[in-house]
C-alpha cells in the first residue's frame, strides 16, 4: 500500500476568501484529516510566491498528493497541475477545491456557515485525493497521410491545399475522372466565368507530386482510429488497402430528377442541370421560358431548402438573356434565397434585366398546361397564365444514395435528409464527432462552388491539425474496460458519442484511447459496471459523497 502524504494549501485570495472565511481554522481543520501531513495558507496561491511555496513543500515533505483550496479548477487547475509536474509529481495527483467562486463569494454574509461548508469541501477533496491514481497521457503515432474520398471541386481543393502544405494526399474518386458536378456546368455565378476555368484545378491536382489520384475506386471497408485509419478500396482489379491518418469526406450530392413532377419530360420540360448542357452547346432556340423553383423541395418529402437553386435559376436566366435578349423569362418562386452582398445584387440585376418574378404559395402550386402555366398570384389574388416554349425545373440537390453505406463504414451519422451530420452545427461544422474524419462540400449540405471551396479549405485545416503531428498526446483521464467484468452487451459502444468503444475479437468492449474524451457516460451506463472512468472513478465519487457531510 502506497504511503500517502498529502499537502493542503488554502488560499486567502487576498480578502476574496480570507475576508469571508476563517482561513486559519480551515488550515487547522485540514491538518486533522487523514494522511494530511502538511497544511498551510497562502495569500495568493497562483502568484509566483504561492507557486514556489507549493513546489518547495512538495519536495520538502515528499508530498504525493496536493490539494489547493482556492478558486475554480476551470481556470486554475492547469496551472497548479503544471506546478506539481515541475516538482516531479504526476499532475493527476492534484485536486482542487473551489472555496471562492462557489463558497466565499456566494455566502458573503455567513462567515460561520460558509467556513463550515469550506471544511466539508476540503474534506471531500481529501477523500478524493486519497484515491487519486497517477495517470499518463497517451501517445498515438500519427500517419501523416490524408485520404480524401470524392474528387469534385471540394475534394480537389482540399487535396491541393494539403499537398501544398507538404502532406501526402490520396484522392479517390468513384468515377473514371475527377471534377464531379462541376463538369456539367456551363458558367458560374456570380461572375459568369466558365466552369471549365475553375475546373483547371484538376490539372494541378493530377500533376502534383504529393497527390496520388485513384479514379474508379470506392471504399468498401474502413477500420482504425485517428491517425491510423485503414481503408479498403475496391478497384476494377481488386481490393486494396490504404493507410491514412485522417479521412475527408467530399462525396458531393446529386441533382434530383423530377420524374412525374410538372410534366418533366427531359425535352421541353427539363431541369436546370439539363439546361446547363443546352447552354454549353448553345442550343437554346425558344422564346418563352418559365422556371419553377422548389420542385421536389420544401415539401412533405423533402422539407429542406436546397440553398443553391435560386442563384442557379437567376444565373441561367441571365445567361439566356445575354444570348437571347428578346427571350421572355419568368421565374416562379416561393422565397428568393440570395443571401449576402453579391447574390442580392445579382438578384437586383436580374430584375433590372426584365426577368419576371412571380411568387407562388405551396397551397396552390403552378399547373402546367400544354402551352401555358397557370399560377395563382396572391398579390393580385387571381390566377395568371404564362405561355411557355420551355419549362426549367429547379430541383434540389439530394444526398448521394451511397452516403448511407459510407456513413456506416465510417461510423458517422447522417441527418434526416441523409446528408452527413457534423459534430456540432455551430462550432465544428466540418468535423465529425469521431476524431480524424472531416466533411466538406455538398456531402454536408447543398453548397455552391464558393461555399464548397471554403469548406474544403476548412476541412483541410482541421485535418492538418492532426497530421502535422508525429504523435498525438491524448488525455489520461479516460475510460477503461475491465475485461473480466465485460459481458460484451455492446451498450457502451452504442451510447459513446465519439465511437471510442469497439468490440474486440473476443466479444469484449475496448476503449480506443485516442478517441475517448472522458465524459464518463459509459461508466454510468454499463450494466455490469465493468468500465472505470479514470480520475472520476466510482470509488472516488463515492468517497466524495461519504465526506460530504451526511452523517
Amino acid at each position, binding site marked *: 500500500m502506497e504511503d500517502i502524504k498529502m499537502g493542503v494549501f488554502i488560499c486567502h485570495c487576498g480578502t476574496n476568501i480570507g475576508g469571508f472565511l476563517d482561513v486559519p481554522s480551515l488550515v487547522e481543520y485540514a491538518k486533522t484529516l487523514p494522511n494530511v501531513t502538511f497544511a498551510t495558507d497562502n495569500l495568493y496561491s497562483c502568484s509566483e510566491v504561492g507557486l514556489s511555496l507549493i513546489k518547495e513543500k512538495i519536495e520538502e515533505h515528499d508530498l504525493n498528493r496536493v490539494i489547493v483550496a482556492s478558486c475554480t479548477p476551470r481556470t486554475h487547475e492547469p496551472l497548479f497541475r503544471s506546478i506539481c509536474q515541475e516538482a516531479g509529481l504526476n499532475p493527476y495527483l492534484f485536486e482542487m477545491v473551489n472555496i471562492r467562486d462557489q463558497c466565499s463569494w*456566494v455566502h458573503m454574509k455567513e462567515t460561520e456557515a460558509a467556513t*463550515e461548508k469550506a471544511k466539508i469541501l476540503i474534506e471531500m477533496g481529501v477523500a478524493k485525493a486519497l484515491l487519486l491514481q497517477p495517470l499518463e497521457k497517451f501517445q498515438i503515432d500519427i500517419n501523416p497521410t490524408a485520404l480524401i474520398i470524392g474528387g469534385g471541386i471540394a475534394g480537389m481543393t482540399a487535396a491541393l491545399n494539403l499537398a501544398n502544405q507538404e502532406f501526402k494526399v490520396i484522392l479517390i474518386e468513384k468515377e473514371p475522372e475527377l471534377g464531379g458536378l462541376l463538369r456539367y456546368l456551363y458558367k458560374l455565378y456570380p461572375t459568369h466565368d466558365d466552369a471549365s476555368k475553375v475546373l483547371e484545378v484538376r490539372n494541378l491536382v493530377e500533376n502534383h507530386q504529393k497527390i496520388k489520384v485513384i479514379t474508379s475506386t470506392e471504399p468498401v471497408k474502413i477500420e482504425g482510429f485517428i491517425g491510423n485509419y485503414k481503408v479498403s478500396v475496391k478497384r476494377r482489379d481488386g481490393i486494396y488497402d490504404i493507410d491514412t491518418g485522417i479521412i475527408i469526406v467530399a462525396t458531393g450530392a446529386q441533382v434530383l430528377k423530377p420524374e412525374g413532377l410538372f410534366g418533366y419530360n427531359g425535352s421541353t420540360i427539363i431541369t436546370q442541370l439539363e439546361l446547363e448542357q443546352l447552354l454549353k452547346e448553345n442550343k437554346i432556340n425558344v422564346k418563352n421560358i418559365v422556371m419553377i423553383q422548389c420542385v421536389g423541395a420544401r415539401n412533405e418529402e423533402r422539407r429542406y431548402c436546397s440553398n443553391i437553386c435560386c442563384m442557379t435559376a437567376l444565373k441561367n436566366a441571365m445567361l439566356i438573356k445575354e444570348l437571347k435578349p428578346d427571350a421572355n423569362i419568368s421565374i416562379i418562386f416561393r422565397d428568393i434565397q440570395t443571401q449576402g452582398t453579391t447574390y442580392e445584387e445579382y438578384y437586383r440585376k436580374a430584375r433590372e434585366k426584365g426577368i419576371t418574378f412571380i411568387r407562388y404559395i405551396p397551397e396552390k402550386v403552378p399547373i402546367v398546361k400544354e402551352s401555358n402555366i397557370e399560377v395563382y398570384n396572391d398579390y393580385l389574388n387571381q390566377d395568371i397564365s404564362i405561355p411557355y416554349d420551355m419549362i426549367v425545373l429547379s430541383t434540389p440537390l439530394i444526398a448521394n444514395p451511397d452516403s448511407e453505406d459510407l456513413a456506416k463504414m465510417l461510423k458517422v451519422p447522417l441527418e434526416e435528409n441523409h446528408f452527413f451530420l457534423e459534430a456540432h452545427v455551430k462550432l465544428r461544422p466540418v468535423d465529425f464527432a469521431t476524431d480524424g474524419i472531416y466533411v466538406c462540400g455538398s456531402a454536408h449540405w447543398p453548397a455552391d462552388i464558393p461555399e464548397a471551396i471554403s469548406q474544403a479549405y476548412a476541412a483541410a485545416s482541421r485535418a492538418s491539425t492532426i497530421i502535422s503531428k508525429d504523435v498525438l498526446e491524448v488525455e489520461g483521464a479516460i475510460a477503461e474496460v475491465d475485461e473480466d467484468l465485460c459481458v460484451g452487451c455492446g451498450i457502451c459502444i*452504442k451510447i459513446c458519442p465519439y465511437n471510442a468503444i469497439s468490440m474486440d475479437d473476443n466479444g469484449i468492449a475496448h476503449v480506443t484511447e485516442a478517441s475517448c474524451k472522458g465524459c464518463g457516460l459509459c461508466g454510468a451506463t454499463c450494466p455490469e459496471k465493468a468500465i472505470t472512468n479514470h480520475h472520476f472513478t466510482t470509488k472516488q465519487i463515492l468517497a466524495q459523497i461519504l465526506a460530504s457531510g451526511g452523517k
Partner: protein
Amino acid sequence: MSFEPNILGFLCNWCSYAGADLAGVSRVQYPPNIRVIRVMCSGRVDPVFVIEALATGLDGVIVMGCHLGDCHYIDGNYEEKMKLDLLSKALQLIGLSGRFRLEWVSASEGVRFGQVVSEFTKQIKNEGPSPFSGSKPNQKLKEDLEAIKRTLSDNRLRTLVGRERAITEFGNVYEEIIEFEEYEKIIDDALNSEFLRNKILIKLEKEPLSVKNLSKSLSIESSLILEHIVSLKARNLIDFNRIDGITPYYHALKEAL
C-alpha cells in the same frame, strides 16, 4: 436551531459548474447548504450515486447539466435524463422523490443557478431531515432504499435503460422502433418487479421466511410474492430452506450476492 439540510450537487464541468462559478463572479448569494461534486458530464452521474448519497443521510441531491442540446459531449445529458427519470420513478416508490432534482443550468445562468439552489434548499427544508440521518434511522425505509439501490445496480434494468434511446430512436437489431411510451411501460414494469424481488431478497437474507410471512411483512398479495419467489429461485438467488408443516420456507443464497 432551525433545520439546516445537507445537500449534494453533481455539476457538469462545462455548463452548470461554469454557471455556479458565474454566480460567484456576480456575487449572487444563495444558502450554503449545497456541496458540489464536479463531473465532466452530467452523464457520468450513475443513479446509484444519488441513492448512495441519500443512504448516507444527505437530505437532498441535485444533478445539474447543460441544457438539452447544449451538451459538451454531444448528447450525454439526454442519456442522463433517461437514467434520472427512472431514478425519480424509483424514488417515488418509496416516497423520496422530493429529495432529488434534475436541472439544466447553462454557463450564462449564474443568477438562475442561485435561484435553483435557493429553491431546492427550501424544498428540502420542507421535506425535513433525512430519514436516514440522526440517531434513529428509519430501518424499514432503509431496507426499501437498499432494494432500490440493488434494482438500479442490477444489470437487467441498466440494460433496458442503456438501450432506451437506441431502441426508441433508431430501432432494435431487427430495426423495429419501439414507441417511446411502450418502452417506458416495459421499463416501469421491470422497475416494479425488480424492486419487489429485491425487497423479498433482503428479507430472506435476514431469515428464512414463507410466502405467507413475506406477504404479511411486505403487505403484498401472496400470489404475487409466489410469482417472484419462483423467478428468484429460477435465477438461483434463493432456495428452499425447509418445509414447516406444509409451508415451504425460503432463504437467500449468500453466494448469489
